[in-house]
């Protein structure tokens, strides 16, 4: 072939070599001197043997040979490499190809591509690194502060090292009390806003609060729910100052989970943003997923509102994404985010706008578009509903990491519409955020549309949450006792401790309402500890009254995941001199299935100590029964819903009988819950159910009544 032909065809700056085998090549085409710098052995003859001048090329030849052996079409690329030759530095890429039955190596001169890539990546990586460092500072300060602040009674007792760390930190630190009233500002927090603490007529906190109101309307809910946030805020003080600040805000709780402080940290990231602005693409896009970022999203919302278009905002959150980072590491976490974003994108149309607006949060703006044909009779709302359902459904199948591990990343979605739900950018985001929050709370309904009912419900819940917090702190809840009967002897052998809450003299809130709230807010930890202590105290009272029965208490899923649960039970029992054999723990099936390893460890330790275990609500959910064989379990409690229809519903009767048969096989004792009639009792007795509790025998009652009842 003739090289002028290649040139005429405008073929790029490359060398083409035909492979003859055993490191022998024929030069088919080369345009420039660089090739002979790279492989001097080729100088002067069209055929040559590859020497050891380029270690990289020699190495790539191994890949190439491997490829030629396995394939007879296509090509593989080496990726860019850099070679220092006697005369110059080269940036090259090699390709191994198979064409027309022959094997070729093409070496491309990548000078230009290298420069371009270098330029972009240089900026991107410098950003990544600065960001990392700032992030680490935020995190360090917050972690240390939360730890120290949650223990210390007052800020004055902060120990010296942390105090000095704050004083000298290059990032601003503001500590407030639980009502957001300032307590401490470090020097950097003043200097970030160019303020002199002696003469300023405002404070860093006042400025931050203003910025929040304008730029991050979700702040109110965040405060109400004591959640954390991090993101960028823009501070503009005309004509002189404008800065981008990276801000983090975290609540600090005391051990009883009462809110003690807020910690706000601020770092000036103007330089980073400036670097970004030299590259517009980076400025408006998220570097990880390539999707539009929060800023871009915000602009789009504002534009749509100005244009008075109708649209929907979908706020999408990945459930428990934090676990992925903890379990698999950040690189994997990052690649999972990319995977999620791709999956979402696939389901959208060109006119839909998808952005990444938080670490694990995405938002979608959906408008009616002439390009999209809707099914006859359906409208945009139907489309939005469908998309949400499809996204949720998609998210139920696992993603896979590079190492082929499964990651479950289910999505939760909150949806609001403009102008029906709100009329400003801030308000529409607040509405979508509220809907998302509801979607997170109600595990059965992971998709929620904003409505005024939702708003009312959310406010009511918040009130309830703070009431509960107070009730726990002031020990206003009560433990009631319900006797459990041995069916063959008719004697009381055990009692179940049940929580009751009477906010006022003549109102009561059921555990089915407040326990889920306690679970979701983490209040279950202090509450659970209180119950354990109370139950042990009750056992000592029993002893004084010569009541010789066991006492069972309920343990919730989140408690089981608390590493210190066993320790606490053990030490409390020992401290109060309670015989562990008198204690029984009731767990639901779900805990054992979802959290098998932790549950197994816990149950084994409890068994060793002498505590017995009952499975609560048995028969209502899980079909995976294999755990029954492998865990040290003593009792199954058949759920009341199965007992209540036992006389009329054949299915229920069949299930109950199956449970009883299985329990016999596995040598487990069965307790029937919710027995209300003599017929139910007789049926259970007849089929050798060991024990029962329910209104037929006695309702749950306070301690004094119980003691009287026992006598």
């Amino acid at each position: 072939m003739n090289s002028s032909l290649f040139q005429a065809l405008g073929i790029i700056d490359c060398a083409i070599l035909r492979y003859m085998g055993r490191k022998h090549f024929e030069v088919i085409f080369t345009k420039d001197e660089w090739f002979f710098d790279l492989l001097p052995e080729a100088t002067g003859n069209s055929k040559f043997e590859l020497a050891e001048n380029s270690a990289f090329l020699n190495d790539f030849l191994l890949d190439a040979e491997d490829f030629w052996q396995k394939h007879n079409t296509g090509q593989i690329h080496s990726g860019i490499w850099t070679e220092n030759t006697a005369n110059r530095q080269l940036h090259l890429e090699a390709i191994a190809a198979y064409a027309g039955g022959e094997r070729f190596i093409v070496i491309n001169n990548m000078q230009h591509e290298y420069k371009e890539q270098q330029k972009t990546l240089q900026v991107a990586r410098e950003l990544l690194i600065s960001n990392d460092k700032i992030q680490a500072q935020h995190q360090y300060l917050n972690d240390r502060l939360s730890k120290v602040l949650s223990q210390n009674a007052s800020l004055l007792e902060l120990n010296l090292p942390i105090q000095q760390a704050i004083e000298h930190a290059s990032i601003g630190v503001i500590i407030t009390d639980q009502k957001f009233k300032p307590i401490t500002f470090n020097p950097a927090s003043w200097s970030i806003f160019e303020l002199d603490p002696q003469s300023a007529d405002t404070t860093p906190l006042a400025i931050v609060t203003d910025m929040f109101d304008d730029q991050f309307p979700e702040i109110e809910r965040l405060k109400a729910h004591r959640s954390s946030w991090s993101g960028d805020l823009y501070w503009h003080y005309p004509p002189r100052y404008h800065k981008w600040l990276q801000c983090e805000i975290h609540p600090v709780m005391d051990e009883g989970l009462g809110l003690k402080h807020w910690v706000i940290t601020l770092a000036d990231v103007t330089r980073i943003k400036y670097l970004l602005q030299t590259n517009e693409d980076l400025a408006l896009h998220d570097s990880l997923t390539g999707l539009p970022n929060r800023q871009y999203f915000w602009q789009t919302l504002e534009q749509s509102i100005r244009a008075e278009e109708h649209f929907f905002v979908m706020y999408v959150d990945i459930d428990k994404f934090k676990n992925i980072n903890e379990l698999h590491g950040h690189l994997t976490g990052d690649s999972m985010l990319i995977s999620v974003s791709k999956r979402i994108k696939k389901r959208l149309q060109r006119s839909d706008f998808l952005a990444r607006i938080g670490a694990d949060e995405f938002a979608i703006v959906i408008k009616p578009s002439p390009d999209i044909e809707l099914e006859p009779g359906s409208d945009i709302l139907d489309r939005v509903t469908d998309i949400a359902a499809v996204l949720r459904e998609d998210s139920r199948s696992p993603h896979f990491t590079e190492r082929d591990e499964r990651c479950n990343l289910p999505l939760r979605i909150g949806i609001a519409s403009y102008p029906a739900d709100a009329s400003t950018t801030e308000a529409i985001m607040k509405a979508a955020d509220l809907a998302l929050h509801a979607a997170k709370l109600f595990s059965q309904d992971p998709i929620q549309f904003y409505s005024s009912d939702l708003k009312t419900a959310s406010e009511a819940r918040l009130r309830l949450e703070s009431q509960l917090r107070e009730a726990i702190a002031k020990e206003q809840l009560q433990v009631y006792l319900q006797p459990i009967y041995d069916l063959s002897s008719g004697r009381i052998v055990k009692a179940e401790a049940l929580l009751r809450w009477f906010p006022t003299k003549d109102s009561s809130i059921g555990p089915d309402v407040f326990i889920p709230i306690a679970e979701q807010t983490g209040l279950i930890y202090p509450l659970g500890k209180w119950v354990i202590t109370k139950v042990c105290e009750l056992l000592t009272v029993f002893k004084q009254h010569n009541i010789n029965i066991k006492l069972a208490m309920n343990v919730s899923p989140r408690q089981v995941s608390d590493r210190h649960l066993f320790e606490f039970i053990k030490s409390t029992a020992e401290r109060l001199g309670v015989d562990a054999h008198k204690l029984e723990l009731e767990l639901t099936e779900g805990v054992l299935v979802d959290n098998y390893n932790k549950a197994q460890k816990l149950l084994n330790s409890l068994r060793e100590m002498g505590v017995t275990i009952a499975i609560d609500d048995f028969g209502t959910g899980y079909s995976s029964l294999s755990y029954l064989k492998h865990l040290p379990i003593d009792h199954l409690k058949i759920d009341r819903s199965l007992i209540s229809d036992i006389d009329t519903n054949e299915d229920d009767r069949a299930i109950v009988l199956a449970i009883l048969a299985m329990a016999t096989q596995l040598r487990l004792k069965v307790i029937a819950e919710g027995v209300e009639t003599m017929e139910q009792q007789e049926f259970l007795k007849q089929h050798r159910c060991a024990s029962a509790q329910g209104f037929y025998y006695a309702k749950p009652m306070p301690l004094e009544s119980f003691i009287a009842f026992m006598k």
Partner: protein
Amino acid sequence: MIQKKVCILGATGVGKTSLIRQFVEGSFSEKYLTTIGVKIDKKQVDVDQTSTQLLIWDLEGIDRYCGFNPRYLRGTSAFFVVMDQTRSQSLIEGMEILHMARDHTAVPAIMIINKCDLDSAWHWDADSVNQRASEFDNCFYTSAKTGENVEQMFTEIARLSLG
């Protein structure tokens, strides 16, 4: 003379290129120029009277812009994982990189904690470093700037690569 291929892995900007440069040329630059792709340097190292020619593969930092490419590990006799002691994230990423590399090769690995001429990140806790170091065959605290332990780390990898 025996030739041995060794690779230098790590997150972006931890000082991989600088360490090689210090070792091969005895120089250091404060300016950061991120590596694109691969560059191979050669240098002879003597271990117990054996001269070994090290082929040192400087790889692009592994981050969200450049994934981990196991192909480059083929035929390597040992590898470094470099971490930057001013950036604790690089420790976490370094460990992830080690684990990914371990899926492809069982050759010796050395942990390098670089930039020790600078103040360590105040939150870098010694226990967690030691615990992680135990997953490697050896560990060095280095500075590409002052040259501290640079000679040593390469002598050690030559020794390990000889098996």
